[in-house]
C-alpha cells in the first residue's frame, strides 16, 4: 500500500479506468496541458492526450449535454465542472435529462455519466458553495462525496463504471490536506455504502467530506472526556446508506449530523428525518444537525471561519445530545 494525497488518489483512479476502458474520456476546462483546476487532472494529458481529453470552452451546459449524448452512445464520459459553484448552470441537463432518461425510456436507454466537481473552502479562495443536497432530492442521480484518499480512488472508479449519472464531489481542502494508504490493485468502493471511520458507543456522528476529518478530531477530543463517538463517513449521499446509519444509532442512541452545506434544507435534514422515522424508539435525545448557518458563504477567510462548521461546534452538538453543557 502506498500513501497518497486525496487528489493523487483520484487522478490514479481516473487513469486506471482510462487505461482499462478506451471509452472513458474527459471533457472539462483547462484539464489538458494546464493540468486542471488545482492541478486536479495532473499527468492525464501527458498519458492520454487530446483524443481522450477534450478541452472545453466556458459552456457548462453544453459540456454536460455532450456528456449525456456520448453516454447514450455507450461511451463513459466524465465531465468536469471546475467548481460546484457552476453546477447551477447544468441543472436542466442533469435534472430534466440525465436523471430521467432511464426511467423515461422505460429502462431502454441509460446515461453512464460522471460529473466531477470541487467544493468547500480550501487553500484556493473561490467557489466554496456546496449544492449537493439539491441532487439527493432528484431521482435517477447518484451523489458521492468521499473524505479519505482510498475511498476517493475506489469511488471514482466505481462512479466511472456505474451505469447511471453520478455526481462526484471533491473537497478542495482535502486535495493535498490529507494523505492516506491506498490499497494496491483494482481498488473499488461500492457506491451507496457508508463507512464507520471510528467506532464508539455513546453517540453517532454522521459526516461528509471535510467534516469527517473535523468529526474525527472532535471524537479524539471527546474521548479525553470519556465520550466515545462513532464517526460514520457517509461517502455516498444518494442513495443514502440508511442501514449503516440506523444500525449505528441503534447502538449509540444519539446522532449528530455534520455537513458543510447550509443546515436548512441540507442533507442533514433528510438524514435526521429518516433516522427518526426508522429508529425513533432507539433515539435517546433529539438529533442535532450541524451545518453552515443561513447566510451566503462569505469570501473573506476570517468570516468563513465563523460560518463553516468546526470541531468545537461538533463537540458542542455532541454535548447537547448528551444533555451536557459544552465548555467550548
Amino acid at each position, binding site marked *: 500500500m502506498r500513501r497518497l494525497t486525496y487528489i493523487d488518489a483520484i487522478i490514479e483512479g481516473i487513469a486506471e479506468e482510462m487505461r482499462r476502458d478506451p471509452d472513458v474520456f474527459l471533457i472539462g476546462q483547462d484539464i489538458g496541458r494546464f493540468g486542471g483546476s488545482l492541478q486536479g487532472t495532473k499527468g492525464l494529458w501527458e498519458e492520454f492526450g487530446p483524443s481522450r481529453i477534450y478541452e472545453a470552452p466556458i459552456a457548462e451546459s*453544453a459540456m454536460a449535454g455532450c456528456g*449525456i*449524448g456520448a453516454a*447514450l*452512445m*455507450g461511451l463513459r464520459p466524465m465531465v468536469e465542472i471546475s467548481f460546484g459553484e457552476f453546477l447551477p448552470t447544468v441543472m436542466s441537463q442533469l435534472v430534466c435529462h440525465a436523471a*430521467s432518461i432511464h426511467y423515461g*425510456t422505460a*429502462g431502454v436507454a441509460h446515461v453512464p455519466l460522471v460529473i466531477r466537481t470541487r467544493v468547500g473552502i480550501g487553500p484556493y479562495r473561490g467557489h466554496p458553495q456546496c449544492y449537493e443536497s439539491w441532487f439527493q432530492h432528484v431521482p*435517477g442521480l447518484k451523489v458521492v462525496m468521499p473524505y479519505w484518499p482510498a475511498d476517493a480512488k475506489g469511488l471514482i472508479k466505481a462512479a466511472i463504471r456505474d451505469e447511471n449519472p453520478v455526481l462526484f464531489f471533491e473537497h478542495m481542502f482535502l486535495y493535498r490536506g490529507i494523505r492516506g494508504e491506498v490499497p494496491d490493485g483494482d481498488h473499488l468502493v461500492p457506491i451507496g455504502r457508508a463507512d464507520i471511520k471510528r467506532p464508539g458507543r455513546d453517540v453517532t456522528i454522521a459526516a461528509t467530506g471535510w467534516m469527517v476529518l473535523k468529526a474525527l478530531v472532535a471524537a479524539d477530543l471527546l474521548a479525553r472526556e470519556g465520550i466515545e463517538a462513532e464517526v460514520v463517513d457517509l461517502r455516498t449521499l444518494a442513495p443514502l446508506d440508511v442501514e449503516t446509519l440506523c444500525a449505528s444509532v441503534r447502538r449509540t442512541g444519539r446522532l449528530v449530523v455534520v455537513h458543510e452545506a447550509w443546515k436548512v434544507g441540507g442533507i442533514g435534514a433528510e438524514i435526521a428525518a429518516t433516522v427518526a422515522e426508522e429508529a425513533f424508539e432507539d433515539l435517546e435525545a433529539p438529533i442535532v444537525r450541524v451545518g453552515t448557518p443561513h447566510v451566503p458563504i462569505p469570501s473573506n477567510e476570517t468570516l468563513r471561519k465563523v460560518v463553516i462548521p468546526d470541531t468545537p461546534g461538533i463537540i458542542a452538538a455532541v454535548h447537547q445530545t448528551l444533555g451536557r453543557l459544552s465548555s467550548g
Partner: protein
Amino acid sequence: MTESFLDRREHLFYHWFVRLSDYGCNVGVLASFAVDKRPSWGGKPFEMMTPEIHRELYRLMVLSRLVDRACCELSVHWFPSEGEEAVLVGSFYGLRPDDVIAPHYRGPFIAFYMRGAALDRLLASPLGKATSYTRGRAPAHCGPPHFNIIPWVSGDLGPIISIAAGTALACRYKQSDRVTVHTIGEGTTNRGDFHEALTLAGLWKLPVVYVVQNNQYAISLHISEFMPCKEITDRAAGYGMPGVAVDGNDVAAVFETVQEAVARARQGLGPTLIEARTYRLRGHWAGDPAAYRPPEEVEAWRAQDPVVRCQQALLASGALTPEDDKALWAAAEEEVAEALAKAKAAPDLGTPDAGLNEVYA
C-alpha cells in the same frame, strides 16, 4: 393490408436497415452501430433526388398529416404539426439507420416511423396505452431510443441541442462516420443551450446537422416579436459554421439541403445550421384557437401547403398520376386507421406496471 414500411423502403437506400428488438437492449442501445464504418460519398449528397424518392417523401408527408390529425382528435394537448411536414420529412429522410436523430417535439412521429417505430405503438402514447414505447413515463415527443433516436424525456426546450452534439462527438470518438440530425424550433434558438451547443459543435467540427424548423411562432408570439436578428442563419457565423436557408415548404429542397449538410458532416467537414422556413397552420396545441394571429396570414400560408405543393409538382412532372395519388391517400388512411385500431385495442397503462421501477440502471 398495406405494404409495410420496412418492405417499402427496401428499394431505396435502407438496405442496411436492421430492426433492433424493441426491448431487451439495455446497454448502449444507440451504440449498436458504433464500430462498423461506412464508405463516404466524396462531398456529394448521400443520394440524388429521384422520382421514387420524391414520391416517397410525398407519401410520408401525407402519412404525417393523417397521423397528426388523428393525434389532435385523441388529445387537446397534442402539438399539431400541420403545414410543417416538408421539414419533418425532408430532414430525416435519406439518413442511414445508424445515424442518430433528434426531432423537434412538434410532429416527431413521422420521424420515429421513418426509423422503423411501429405506428400503433406511437399512437399508444397519447392514448395512454401499455404498448407505448415509453410506457407512459415520458411525453409523447420522446422517441424510442431503440432506433438511434435521442430520447427527450422532459418538456424543457434547449438541452437536446447539446445532447445531439454529444451523440455526434461519440460517433467521431468511435471513428465512425455516423451523423446526427436535430430539428429545433426557431423560438428555441434563443435559449442559452443553443449557443453553447453550437459553440461546441463548431469548435470541435462535430458531425451534426441542425435544422431550424422555423414555423414563425413560439406559442402566441410571431417571430418578429422574439427574434432580434433578420435571419436565423445570421447566427451561424458566430459558431464558425455555414448557415443555409431553405424553403421549408418544399420537401425536395429541404431533403437536398439536409443531405448535402449530412454529406459534409460525414466527411468530417463539420456542422451546418439550416433554417427551413415554414408555418404552423394550427394552434400551438390542438385546443388552441390561435386567436392571436390574423386569419389572412394563415390563409396565405395554407396556399403554400407543402403537401399540396408536392402533390402538384409530382402530378405536373408525371411522376404521379391522379390514380396513384388516390391510391396513396387511401393506403395511408388505411395504415393510420389500422394502427389506431390496434393502439386502441391495446391494454391501458397501469398495474402491474405502476411506473415505480427502472429509475436506476
